[in-house]
């Protein structure tokens, strides 16, 4: 049990008060989205605006469905694109980032220090800033307008490698040595010893990768409508303006369910991984 020194009741009330106040601020837009998604049109344009709904309706979801039928590309196609790049991107990211993290954490091979520096430095960079040279490279390799243009940049996220690397440093060297003495090669050790030991970190890489791919719209690498993703649909719907408020909220609500569920179900393991995230 944690030693709690000098916790006064007044202090606890203050903590509770501050957390409630800011909790409301952080939750307000989310509550607004959920409530609006179930509001009939006449309640959306009521003054003063309300944060609750009197007669909840599924009309917005029905409208969403009707609007989709008018799309030139069927909705199922957008759903497939988003689900496909998210799953393929996340799984491959976890695999290759873990493969790289193992030697980076455990083997003093020549060049490791330099690579480590570069990875840490790369944590700073915003992808939006290097999209021009990235475009040139992807175009030269004929990958513009393909799934690869969306998936490949996500695979090499330095954050994923960094977190996995730090987590793997805590694997006891003994079990690696034991496998080595048994004559196993590094690739076998990686799959049979290392990977089963870092399951919490898989989930962490999964959630970060999932979050970014799930809302990725292809940026400037995709302009073929058949390859566009759900966020592009969202943009089309919300471009309809205030009259589409309810429908937009309904779509946003549906879109946020998967990442939220994923995080809620894996929270404790994510926190466990983040315990090792410190930068030395």
């Amino acid at each position, binding site marked *: 049990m944690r*030693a709690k020194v000098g916790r006064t009741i007044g202090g606890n009330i203050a903590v509770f008060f501050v957390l409630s106040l800011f909790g409301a601020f952080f939750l307000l837009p989310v509550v607004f989205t959920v409530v609006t998604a179930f509001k009939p049109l006449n309640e959306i344009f009521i003054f003063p605006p309300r*944060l609750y709904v009197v007669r909840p309706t599924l009309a917005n979801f029905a409208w969403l469905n009707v609007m989709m039928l008018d799309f030139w590309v069927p909705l199922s196609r957008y759903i497939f694109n988003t689900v496909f790049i998210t799953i393929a991107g996340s799984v491959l990211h976890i695999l290759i980032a873990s493969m790289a993290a193992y030697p980076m954490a455990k083997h003093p091979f020549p060049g490791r220090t330099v690579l480590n520096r570069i990875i840490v430095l790369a944590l700073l960079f915003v992808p939006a800033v290097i999209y021009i040279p990235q475009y040139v*490279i992807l175009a030269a390799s004929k990958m513009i307008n393909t799934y690869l243009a969306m998936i490949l940049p996500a695979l090499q996220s330095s954050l994923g490698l960094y977190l996995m690397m730090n987590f793997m440093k805590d694997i006891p060297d003994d079990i690696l040595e034991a496998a080595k003495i048994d004559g196993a090669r590094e690739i076998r050790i990686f799959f049979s010893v290392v990977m089963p030991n870092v399951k919490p970190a898989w989930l962490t890489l999964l959630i970060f990768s999932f979050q970014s791919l799930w809302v990725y719209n292809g940026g400037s690498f995709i302009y073929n409508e058949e390859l566009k993703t759900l966020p592009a649909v969202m943009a089309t719907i919300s471009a309809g303006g205030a009259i589409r408020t309810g429908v937009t909220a309904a779509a946003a609500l549906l879109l946020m369910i998967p990442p939220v569920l994923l995080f809620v179900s894996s929270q404790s393991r994510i926190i466990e991984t983040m315990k090792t995230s410190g930068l030395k």
Partner: protein
Amino acid sequence: MKRISNSTGEQVSVWKRIVYYRDSYMLIAPFMLLFALLTVIPIVAAIGLSFTSFNMLEMPRFIGWQNYQRMFLDDPIFFKVVKNTLIFALVTGPLGYIMSFLFAWLINETGRLMRTILTVIFYMPVLAGNIYFVWAFLLSADSNGIINGWLMQMGFIQEPIGWLIDQNLMLPSLMVVQLWMSLGTGFLAFIAGFQSMDNKLFEAGAIDGIKNRWQELWYITLPSMSNQLLFSAVMQISASFGASAIIITLVGFPTSQYNADTIVTYIMDIGTTRFEMGYACTLAVFLFTLMLLANFVFTNMLRRFQAD
């Protein structure tokens, strides 16, 4: 894994060590090749292209320092977006950072179940992806905007305020939204940091005369979280200098008279709209330098703080 060396230590040739670690290189190869192709080479290429005139259609043409001259001497918009970026980053960066730490601390003061629930609530803005667009409805300029509606009903204001339209309010409104989204990866690292604190330290502190939670935070927790402090700072710098999606979604692209544009959105404007790729890369190089500088300044501040 033992380092191979003979009695003279460093004398084993690098080549032999590389051969010895060949499996390690095979394992890192897929990631590192992609990383080289899509991060390292683009950064180096951006530096190279910053000295060229390049429109994507023809080959880049070397023009020396002309882009840099243009940036520093002939581009009034550049100074505007740099000013916006600095104001935006200097407010949302430190504030978001302090908020991440403070809320992680306060959440840690609650019980186990509350901690789990509150972490989800405070992380929700980042978790829910592109939900920030609903601020367009909350801050809408007419009386149907939620914030305006409430303020008018309570009698604070008579006329609706153009939170995202008024030239003087756009940037502050965007900062509020950015702060709302600032409890991200760094925040999770702090939550984890508080949970992994060694209880013995607190017990020892109590014996040494720690009286309340503030002293505990200042004398025990802060000094032992320096690694998390550094990691979160990197995340925060990257987020506050890199903000672009919320600006484009909430006030437009480019914003009217560039009044709320940052260097990142200006790079997109120059590159995507005007196809002046060389100049866009020059701006990108400037932004890299700025971010590295911010990181350097912060690291030194933290070191000095720890030395005290």
